[in-house]
């Protein structure tokens, strides 16, 4: 029985006194059912919602004329070349095909790529840090903060990063590189296709400049 109602007579001779009622409800089936439901929810659902990274790619519309495209100064551009086997290379500005040492190798760790990018983006980082403190001290609102951060990120002197991945690179490499852009507060970055010149640079680096030497001679 799931619920019992017990009756007890306290005495025989006493009339007029109300009968004492004692009720006890059995909760076991309810607990059983709850446990079952909990197990079901634990197994069939996921608690964490996936994160996402927003990205906008350049349009490859052929109708866009030269002056509608955004030109960047070669001096502020950093080109990242993502290669297979988790290797990453970078060069500044325009590629120098005859000098293999212009291409530098780095890695995805905190003191590799991140240190390099942070070094180049110090001004913006300092400003963002200042803003963050202001936000913590409740001097500016969240919306203001976001506005100002994006303004700093797209400022004039911030570096522009061009990400080019070879076919051997994995999706993780790409995400890692994009992640560094977020960490280092770099607002201007683009993912483009690798061109033959960059492949040449990579090969030239591997062979320590023998390719460029042979073409020069």
């Amino acid at each position, binding site marked *: 029985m799931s619920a019992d109602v017990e009756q007890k007579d306290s005495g025989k001779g006493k009339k007029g006194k109300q009968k004492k009622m004692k009720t006890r409800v*059995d*909760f*076991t089936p*309810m*607990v059983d059912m*709850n*446990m079952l*439901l*909990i197990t079901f*929810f*634990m197994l*069939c*659902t*996921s*608690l*964490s*919602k*996936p*994160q*996402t*990274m*927003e*990205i*906008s*790619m*350049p*349009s*490859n*519309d052929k109708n866009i004329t030269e002056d509608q495209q955004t030109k960047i100064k070669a001096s502020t551009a950093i080109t990242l070349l*993502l290669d297979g086997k988790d290797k990453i290379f970078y060069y500044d500005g325009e590629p120098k095909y005859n000098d293999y040492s212009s291409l530098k190798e780095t890695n995805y760790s905190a003191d590799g790529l991140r240190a390099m990018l942070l070094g180049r983006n110090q001004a913006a980082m300092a400003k963002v840090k200042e803003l963050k403190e202001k936000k913590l001290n409740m001097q500016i609102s969240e919306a203001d903060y976001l506005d100002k951060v994006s303004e700093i990120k797209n400022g004039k002197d911030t570096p522009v990063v061009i990400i080019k*991945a*070879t*076919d*051997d*690179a*994995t*999706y*993780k*490499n*790409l*995400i*890692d590189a*994009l*992640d560094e852009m*977020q*960490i280092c507060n770099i607002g201007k970055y683009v*993912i483009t*296709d690798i061109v033959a010149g960059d492949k040449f640079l990579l090969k030239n680096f591997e062979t320590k400049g023998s390719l460029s030497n042979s073409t020069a001679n």
Partner: protein
Amino acid sequence: MTAMSDVTVLLLTFFMLTSTFVKKEPVQVSTPASVSEIKIPETNILQILIDTKGKIFMSLDKQPDMRAVLEGMGEEYGVSFTPDEVQKFSKMATFGVPMKNMKKYLEMSQEEQDAVLKDQGIPCDSLDNQFKSWVRTAKSTNPDLRIAIKADQKTPYSVIKKVMTSLQDIRENRYNLITSLKAVEAEKK
């Protein structure tokens, strides 16, 4: 006993409110980690699932959209579907079958479908780019759709590039990349 039932009810309420149901996916995908903390919206998502070998699957979260998309695709590729087939398609969690196999696939039972789906995938070659058509049709039925790419971390970039250029071709320049939280990933290692 009352205390225990209190606890279970509390736990149950917690799980019911916080959790979301896991979607059935044909391939297991482990997404790369990132520091990004933007949560993905729950509705109006067109999810593109890419496995390590580069097979592409898609999922839509609304049944009316699924129906309209299949009809649109049928028109484009000259395949006509019966209302039964459309109904069956709209109930699917994930789809990713070449159009020429679609009719045969829809005839199968649920178990058979699950078994074959992971060997299929939407073709996305320069010759036969059905992926592009799917996205375009989906986007025209529901312009509010957001595109989210969920790819395995070991997926080669060449596949991602193919998907990205296809999206660029139909002027879908803004999309989301689904990642997992970095802190969680660090603990696992």
